[in-house]
């Protein structure tokens, strides 16, 4: 608030103070930088943020020029609403990876540079040529407050235009909804139909495999491994992959797993199969064990069926 | 206000065209009869015009005048002088025969798939022909320059479709290739004439501006302008007049193909069916020469006098050049086209000789050339439709298998080389005499055309009709009754005009005198009187 009053005092008197000049010379370069950023940033999100910055600075300039209402509106509507809208749309469209700055149209950049330079020079020249006097100031215009001044103009002289803009806004809102609204043409498929479809075109019949094999922590971002140990992209959500935030299983992790396997193998003093094959790889051996024990069981027919524990115990005793 | 005869003469074919167009597509024959009836009615009306016209009377007769766009001085003004009457009669007489000759030309071909078939070809063909007739007649009777211009240009549209849409069945090369050539010819025709028309439009606007300081404001009325010029209350600056003249003349020189603006004619006539080719050269092109006589001379006398040497030179070139190229042709329709170019050279020569013989001869020439070319081209068309080829080399000995066809062909050819006893002889002789009395050298050069004409006609006849019979032609049918009914009257007309042209000359000559008085020229005295 204090700044506002300060600024208003700046704008009120006709002769401009050094303070305003200082403010201008500090903020203007930033604004320009923001503009450039808007144009040049490779990621849309960044340029959106740059734009927001520029807008805020412009808002400050409005205030400095005695347009308090506009300054506020600038911040609230533009920076607040419009830019947010931009960001939302960006999310909707997918915060895709930065679009390349490689020019596809032949000579487009040259033309742009030429015209841009030309226009800039022309505008500057025009302004220079137009004998711009000094400020007359808004002292009496803002006599009973800027907002009141605007309002009295808006609701008297610019009434019709105001109404029309109102209509325009309404229409725009309706139009936007109409545009973005998607009519459902056919009824959505039932789960059964979807599954049947999947079977028909033979893609991924069972549900997708879960991520996070051998996870040490919440591991949505670690792909599950295939039998041969290669990570499967199916297991991680597309968005993460889009963002490039997928963590892949490191070699040391693999190594440690192998070591673990080895240790369990030693513990059961069996030739541990040290291979990339993990849990699944071990299973057949167990099967064979079972087989042996089965055979032993067939050898001594004396044992009554059903008490495994005994047989185990017998093996223990056999050792 | 008496019965508007001229308007009726224009409306009859126009209404006929609409009637023909709306005949249901299944009833092709009905459409043909409707078209024929309409053209006959037109001919009757034209005959009435011919009767009601008093040769000795006013310059423009049967006049009608209604305000149309008063703000621009445009009005609906009709009227005929002797020249107009002659040409209206020619048009109205020819078209029924053309329809009769083209009776089966527009029937959908049997081999054509329903998909590839055009929509109601027959109705379209005859309706278009009638439209052309209406527009041509209008441009002959319009005495308001703007009115004339509109129809002069509008003519192109139906002609374009007639040329591009209805080739003849003669296929020495494939169907698609033919279609390509056809569309090429049609587009060429259109662009050429359109270019001329646009130049003329500019000249017309210029004329309006130039006449704007008349008491009544600017006007397009031919009579008003000529009278104003005669009374001296309207004078053009020299350069203005010359530019306007050029604007008009170039358009007409394209229409009545004058060397070097002629190259559209051989394509157009070669690719289109025989009746359409006749329509082009015998009817539509006459508008060009007619307009030279009526507008160029009537509106811009001094400029015409100024341009005469060049125009005569061009006419001479056309005569000799056209004839030589006709000799060099391998395609009989193109040959006839180049022959027409040579004849148009004669017509222009007669017009710009500025003598009563020359201009009367030119007018007669328009009529006679129309009939003669019609006879020759239609018979050639019948021949082509039998053999299916336009190449002269594909024929030979027809005279033995189809004597009547050969005979009519020969008579048409003899008329084309203007043999005494046929109409063209008188017109050509008048043109030459008229030219000679004023420009002896030009007259003598033009005589070369006589010999060359004999060459191209007789070479054509010899190569196609005489010699041993080619096996493909051994059982070619002779002229059918319909075809004979089309050709015989034309031949009779040719011979009648050659033996007793007085009625025609009596109608034409007074108007020619008017034109000459516009230009301020008079026939040169014979040497002896001059000496006395």
């Amino acid at each position, binding site marked *: 608030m204090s700044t506002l009053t300060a600024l208003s005092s700046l704008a009120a008197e006709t002769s*401009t103070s050094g303070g305003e000049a200082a403010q201008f010379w500090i903020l203007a370069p930033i604004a320009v930088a923001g503009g450039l950023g*808007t144009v040049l940033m490779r990621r849309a999100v960044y340029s959106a943020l740059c734009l927001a910055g*520029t807008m805020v600075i412009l808002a400050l300039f409005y205030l400095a*020029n005695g347009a308090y209402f*506009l300054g506020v509106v600038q911040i609230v509507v533009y920076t607040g609403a419009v830019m947010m809208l931009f960001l939302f*749309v960006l999310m909707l469209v997918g915060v895709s990876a930065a*679009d390349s700055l490689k020019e596809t149209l032949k000579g487009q950049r040259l033309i742009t540079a030429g015209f*841009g330079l030309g226009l800039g020079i022309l505008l500057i020249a025009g*302004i220079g040529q137009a004998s*711009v006097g000094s400020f007359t100031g808004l002292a009496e215009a803002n006599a009973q407050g800027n907002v009141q001044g605007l309002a009295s103009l808006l609701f008297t002289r610019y009434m019709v235009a105001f109404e029309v803009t109102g209509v325009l806004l309404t229409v725009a809102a309706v139009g936007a909804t109409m545009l973005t609204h998607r009519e459902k043409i056919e009824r959505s498929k039932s789960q059964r139909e979807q599954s049947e479809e999947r079977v028909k075109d033979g893609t991924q019949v069972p549900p997708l495999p879960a991520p996070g094999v051998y996870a040490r922590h919440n591991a949505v971002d670690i792909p599950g491994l295939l039998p041969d140990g290669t990570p499967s992209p199916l297991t991680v959500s597309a968005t993460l992959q889009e963002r490039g935030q997928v963590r892949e299983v490191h070699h040391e992790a693999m190594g440690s797993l192998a070591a673990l396997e080895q240790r369990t193998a030693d513990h059961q003093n069996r030739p541990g199969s040290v291979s990339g094959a993990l849990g699944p790889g071990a299973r057949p051996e167990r099967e064979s064990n079972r087989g042996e024990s089965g055979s032993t069981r067939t050898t001594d027919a004396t044992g009554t069926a059903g008490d495994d524990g005994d047989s185990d115990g017998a093996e223990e005793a056999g050792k | 206000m008496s019965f508007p005869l001229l308007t009726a003469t224009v409306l009859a074919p126009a209404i006929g065209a609409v009637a023909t167009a709306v005949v249901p597509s299944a009833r092709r024959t009905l459409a043909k009869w409707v078209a024929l009836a309409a053209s006959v009615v037109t001919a009757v009306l034209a005959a009435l015009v011919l009767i009601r016209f008093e040769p000795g009377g006013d310059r423009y007769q049967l006049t009608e005048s209604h305000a149309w766009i008063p703000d621009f001085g445009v009005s609906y003004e009709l009227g005929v002088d002797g020249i107009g009457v002659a040409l209206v009669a020619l048009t109205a007489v020819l078209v029924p025969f053309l329809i009769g000759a083209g009776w089966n030309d527009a029937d959908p071909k049997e081999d054509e798939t329903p998909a590839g078939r055009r929509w109601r070809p027959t109705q379209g063909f005859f309706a278009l022909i009638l439209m052309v007739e209406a527009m041509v007649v209008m441009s002959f009777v319009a005495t308001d320059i703007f009115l004339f211009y509109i129809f002069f240009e509008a003519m192109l549209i139906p002609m374009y479709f007639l040329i591009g849409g209805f080739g003849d069945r003669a296929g020495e090369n494939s169907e698609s290739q033919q279609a390509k050539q056809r569309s090429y010819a049609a587009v060429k025709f259109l662009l050429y004439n359109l270019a001329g028309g646009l130049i003329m439009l500019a000249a017309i606007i210029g004329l309006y501006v130039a006449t704007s300081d008349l008491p009544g404001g600017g006007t397009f009325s031919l009579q008003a302008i000529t009278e104003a010029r005669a009374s001296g209350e309207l004078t053009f600056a020299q350069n203005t007049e010359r530019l306007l003249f050029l604007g008009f003349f170039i358009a007409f020189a394209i229409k009545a193909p004058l060397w070097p603006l002629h190259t559209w004619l051989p394509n157009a006539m070669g690719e289109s069916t025989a009746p359409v080719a006749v329509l082009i050269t015998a009817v539509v092109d006459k508008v060009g020469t007619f307009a030279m006589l009526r507008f160029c001379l009537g509106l811009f006398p001094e400029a015409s006098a100024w341009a005469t040497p060049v125009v005569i030179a061009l006419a001479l070139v056309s005569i000799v050049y056209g004839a030589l190229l006709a000799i060099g042709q391998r395609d009989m329709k193109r040959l006839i086209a180049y022959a027409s170019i040579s004849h148009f050279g004669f017509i222009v020569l007669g017009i710009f000789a500025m003598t009563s013989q020359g201009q009367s001869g030119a007018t007669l020439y328009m009529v006679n050339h129309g009939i003669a070319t019609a006879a020759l081209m239609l018979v050639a068309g019948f021949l082509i439709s039998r053999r299916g080829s336009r190449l002269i080399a594909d024929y030979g000995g027809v005279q033995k298998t189809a004597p009547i066809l050969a005979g009519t062909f020969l008579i048409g050819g003899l008329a084309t080389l203007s043999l005494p006893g046929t109409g063209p002889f008188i017109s050509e002789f008048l043109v030459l005499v008229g030219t000679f009395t004023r420009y002896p050298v030009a007259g003598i050069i033009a005589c070369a055309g006589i010999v060359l004409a004999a060459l191209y006609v007789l070479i054509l006849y010899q190569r196609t009709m005489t010699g041993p019979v080619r096996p493909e032609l051994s059982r070619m049918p002779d002229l059918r009754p319909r075809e004979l009914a089309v050709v015989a009257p034309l031949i009779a007309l040719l011979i009648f005009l050659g033996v007793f042209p007085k009625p025609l000359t009596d109608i034409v000559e007074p108007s020619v005198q008017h034109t000459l008085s516009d230009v301020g020229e008079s026939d040169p005295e014979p040497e002896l009187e001059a000496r006395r």
Partner: protein
Amino acid sequence: MSPENYLHLSALLFTIGACGVLLRRNAIVVFMSIELMLNAANLALVTFSRMHGNLDGQIMAFFVMVVAAAEVVVGLAIIVMVYRSRHSASVDDASLMKL
């Protein structure tokens, strides 16, 4: 401190925005550039209003904002729709104006 500075600034921003429109393929960024241009214009308007000492310029700027808002809404809607149909927000993909 004279109005020129503000005007020069707005000119500069305007030009930058224009170049952005021409350079960027991403429709959204193009839109942002347009916004930038509008804002530059607004700055000029406001400056003028102070220059002449009446509020009409500000009114004008106000209207510009409103219209810009409307335009953004519709525009973004369109972008979203295009993206749905052709899975890209690139301006160049929609080169359908060619016959």
